[in-house]
């Protein structure tokens, strides 16, 4: 039966080298595996950049058109919570970076600690985000579902809003456009929060594995790549904070 020359080739040659258990069969070396997955992660982040890119484009167009509405809309966000959230996320980025360092230098308890801190800070971020969103709901600032422009035309009509409203009332046609601002606010922070939720889910899984010592035996790839993702989410927030919260606070 085996007289075809092709069959001679078909005897699979077993790999000669001894591989660490985390090296996948189709890679030649661990370095190649790390390189490839790291590069893949960066490409994935590029797709994320373009994903948010569509939102940023929409934001820019609308902001250019309806600047007064965007100013007033942004003043409805709490700068305190916003700043706190930014700091929480920056700190979580720091602890994530530390996790990578711990994994690289094989400090298991340090790694578990740093990952847990990142996890907690991520939850803090989402918690604060929840508080802010709840406030928007109370103030009738959820576009499409629960929205009132009345407060922007005549602030006194809504005591909830009036308490912290320092802007001049908007003309009715411009007031309508605040809904665009809040639509973008919810779309952008919502997309961002979705990424956070996914990240936190993966973090939980990583803490579990880190306690088993999976990342402190030389296999840093996963931690490193997840770190990239986490930092990327942080970067997006840095821009969202500047674009959504900080429009002309001086007015």
């Amino acid at each position, binding site marked *: 039966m085996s007289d075809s020359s092709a069959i001679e080739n078909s005897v699979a040659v077993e790999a000669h080298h001894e591989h660490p258990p985390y090296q996948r069969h189709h890679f030649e070396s661990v370095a190649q595996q790390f390189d490839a997955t790291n590069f893949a992660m960066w490409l994935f982040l590029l797709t994320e950049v373009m994903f948010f890119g569509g939102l940023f484009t929409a934001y820019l167009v609308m902001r250019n*058109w*309806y600047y*007064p509405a965007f100013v007033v809309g942004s003043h409805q966000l709490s700068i305190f919570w916003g700043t706190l959230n930014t700091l929480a996320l920056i700190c979580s980025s720091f602890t994530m970076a530390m996790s990578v360092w711990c994994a690289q230098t094989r400090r298991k308890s340090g790694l578990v600690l740093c990952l847990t801190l990142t996890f907690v800070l991520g939850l803090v971020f989402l918690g604060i985000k929840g508080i802010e969103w709840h406030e928007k709901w109370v103030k*009738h600032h959820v576009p*499409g*579902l*629960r*929205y*009132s*422009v*009345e407060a922007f*035309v005549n602030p006194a009509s809504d005591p909830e809003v009036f308490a912290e409203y320092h802007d001049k009332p*908007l*003309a*009715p*046609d*411009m*007031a*309508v456009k605040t809904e665009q601002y809040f639509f973008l606010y919810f779309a952008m922070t919502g997309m961002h929060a979705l990424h956070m939720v996914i990240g936190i889910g993966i973090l939980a899984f990583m803490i579990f594995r880190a306690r088993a010592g999976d990342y402190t035996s030389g296999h840093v790839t996963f931690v490193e790549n997840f770190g990239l993702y986490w930092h990327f989410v942080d970067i997006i927030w840095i821009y969202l904070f500047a674009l959504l919260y900080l429009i002309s606070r001086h007015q």
Partner: protein
Amino acid sequence: MSHISPVLWQFLVKWLTNFALFPPEASRIAPQMDALFFFMVLVSLVGLTIVVLLIVGFAILYNKERHPHAVQIEGSTLLEATWTIIPLGLFLIMFVWGALIYFRVYTPPANAMNIYVVGKQWMWKVEHPGGQHEINALHVPVNEPVQLTLISQDVFHSFSIPDFRVKREAIPGRYTSVWFEATKTGTYHLFCTQYCGTDHSHMTGEVVVMSPEDFRKWLAGSTSGQSLAQDGERLFASLSCNACHNSRPDARGPNLVGVYGSKLTLTTGQTVTADDAFLRQAILNPSAHVMQGYVPIMPTYQGQISEEGVIALVEYLKNLDTGYRVQQTLNTTTLPPQFQGAPPAAGQKRTPQGEVKP
């Protein structure tokens, strides 16, 4: 010939009588556009011939039987440069030529007569300044430039007259314009070419090009009794626009006499020309278009006036050359029904602003 199947026979007769490769050239721009089109066809044919000749020629010359051993050739910078630069040059010619025509089609001459077109699912409503309203038809005089100001009341539509080689989308929320000068009397197809929902393919009509006399007769015969500007005047009064825009020195709104076509300075410091699009925007989104020296107190009329109503107002403002009329306008308080805002479309939940949805 009767032994051929009658169906086939009919088919052939139809083919022979109706066959055309390109539509009639019935407007000033059509021959110009066709010139470019035929230039492109020529270039394509030459290009295609070259490619086909090369492939067929090489296939015959160098098939395996004739030419059993291939000669390896790396490439040729000279040849490759040739077929980079020549197509590039041709494409650039087409680009410049095409751009010239594009600008010509979308730059109406100053003396063009203006006709308003409102697209809605699934009909074209045409409004002549004289108050003639048409549905799915457009009557125009021959040899006279006609500008169409287009707007859609709902979704994207596209106003296309193939025999004139012009087409423009009517989009919601903004005026667009196109112009043509018909050169042959007759009846031509009018299509909506942008897909707009269920009855897209029934959103067709006809463009009737008439001699000037016939057109005058038609205008006289189909007038609704009130010009568009007069409609606008009534609307102006019933919306109480003249409470502020009344040309008095202490008026809260700017004087609108002679405003059309003038240069205005806005509170933002921008200088703009008050054209149709600006007037429309100023009615619907006043606060972004406040003139210097005035405060943004004007309410918005978004959703309260139909597109036809806005057109009537714009047309009224265009023809407003004396303040007398504004002050003397009768003060009716109700909005004529034909100008009320369109009812929300199916599946659409609009709440009046200010109202809170639970």
